[in-house]
């Protein structure tokens, strides 16, 4: 067995380093290990880091013999360096590291501007190099991107969902009461509670109030203090719900297969953790989507391409999760450093589906009973 090769990681943030060390351990099975620059014959240099030019010059001056694999979103203006585009293909990076080890020669020293990038056709809208391609562009896998039109978006402000969300966010620390023709709601964000004059089973019909008819007609009252013993004056039955659960279900019912206007479909989004699916209703396919999505930020379109589930279910889950703060746009360097993983055939065959469908049948039978 070959001895492990020490690799220095330069210009990368802590989480990115952790991600790469995880890849070293799991994927490269210890062939490469993290090393200090002085002791590492090979380095991975992130050319997208802050002050990359200065960092590069300093590193080259201190470690002139270290072989370097450059990673960056765009190819650097350096000749004769091994370059792997970001998001990283794990196998392409491994190959580049092996080449660096085999080459055993100093990387070129150049006076060129190292932060400048070549003008190539590689761009956010152009085709990525093969190393970074997604499942949809793998050989033999058809690109089945759905047709996206304006129907996939909705304006939150046209619905109770958006108006309640706005009322809460613009009055932090205070309670708000919303009265419409067919509902009365008091939301107390500081106690994570919401009171409504209808049960959750009626939420879908309230959420779906047509734009123009109900929206805009609500009376919104900001309360300094909510009397929790009588949160809804004049209401008959008062139903108390955890705020997160109510907002999740309101968001899911309002989204109904759509996302809010402005949601990027092609940019990586994260799922911070599994939603508490025993207390918030999982939309269709939500468990399967969450199991993959929680491992790594991905775009909504990539989730669709990877999982082949109806994209409407992905949109509904994203809208609900984003509403309670579990999902959002991935902005950290580490979120997009590694190319999204792909799904191989399951070793369990149809076992998982058999379990899921068995319980779905049981649920329906229970509901019918």
């Amino acid at each position, binding site marked *: 067995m070959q001895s492990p090769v020490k690799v220095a990681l330069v210009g990368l943030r802590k989480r990115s380093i952790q991600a790469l060390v995880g890849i070293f351990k799991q994927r490269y099975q210890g062939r490469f290990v993290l090393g200090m620059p002085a002791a590492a014959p090979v380095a991975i240099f992130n050319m997208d880091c802050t002050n990359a030019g200065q960092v590069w010059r300093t590193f080259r001056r201190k470690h002139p013999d270290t072989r370097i694999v450059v990673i960056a979103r765009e190819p650097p203006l350096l000749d004769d360096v091994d370059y792997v585009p970001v998001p990283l293909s794990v196998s392409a990076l491994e190959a580049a590291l092996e080449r660096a080890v085999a080459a055993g020669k100093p990387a070129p020293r150049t006076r060129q501007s190292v932060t400048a990038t070549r003008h190539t056709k590689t761009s956010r809208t152009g085709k990525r190099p093969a190393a970074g391609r997604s499942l949809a562009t793998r050989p033999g896998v058809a690109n089945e991107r759905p047709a996206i039109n304006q129907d996939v978006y909705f304006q939150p402000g046209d619905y109770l969902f958006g108006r309640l969300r706005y009322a809460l966010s613009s009055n932090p620390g205070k309670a708000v009461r919303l009265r419409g023709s067919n509902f009365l709601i008091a939301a107390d964000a500081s106690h994570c509670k919401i009171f409504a004059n209808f049960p959750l089973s009626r939420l879908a019909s309230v959420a779906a109030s047509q734009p123009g008819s109900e929206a805009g007609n609500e009376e919104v009252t900001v309360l300094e203090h909510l009397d929790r013993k009588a949160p809804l004056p004049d209401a008959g039955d008062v139903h108390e719900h955890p705020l997160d659960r109510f907002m999740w279900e309101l968001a899911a019912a309002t989204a109904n297969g759509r996302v809010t206007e402005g949601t990027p479909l092609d940019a990586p989004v994260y799922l911070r953790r599994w939603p508490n699916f025993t207390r918030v209703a999982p939309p269709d396919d939500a468990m399967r989507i969450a199991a993959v999505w929680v491992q790594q930020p991905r775009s909504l379109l990539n989730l669709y391409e990877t999982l082949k589930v109806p994209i409407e279910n992905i949109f509904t889950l994203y809208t609900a999760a984003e509403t309670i703060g579990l999902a959002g746009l991935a902005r950290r360097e580490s979120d997009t450093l590694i190319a999204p993983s792909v799904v191989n055939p399951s070793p369990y065959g149809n076992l998982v589906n058999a*379990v899921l469908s068995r319980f779905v049948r049981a649920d329906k039978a229970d509901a019918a009973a």
Partner: protein
Amino acid sequence: MNAPASRHRRIVFTGPDDSTATCAIATISDARVTRDSCDVATVDTALRLQLDHGVLHLQQAGEIHLYATPPDTPVDTVTEFVQTSGMGLIVLLDNKRPYPLRDMHFYLHSFQAYIAETSVAVGLCNLNTSDTYSIDDYQAELISLGLHVPVFETDVTDKRDVVLLVEALLLSTEVRKTLVHV
């Protein structure tokens, strides 16, 4: 990592409370839960394990065996028992106990090798009756260990809760075995 043969598929329920794991498998088992003796041959000895046993019948897809470990069961023998056949671990924690996060770490550490081959899901009992820790606290601990796994508030007498835990566990295990970086 081969898929376990159908007659050997096993899910292990564990936790610090003697009856909670057994109650959970009784809630979803198709057959009455029985205490079974299971022979386990380790490298240097043969042991007889006492495990509570239930089963899920899946028609053409075979069946999944559900095992609950009494708290005093030696974990290494359980791990040996399910090593080639396990589909994951469900840890049931009681949020009212003095140190539930410590409990979680104990089981994650004890079943480390098994979890590495499969996956884990965590059920939190008495979450709404105790203000000790929130789901986010448990998730933060798990994520710091590199585990992005399901953590659900769970009433082990509620079939829907236990079923959702099992579903999430199976999907997590499947993802663990099928998701690869290219």
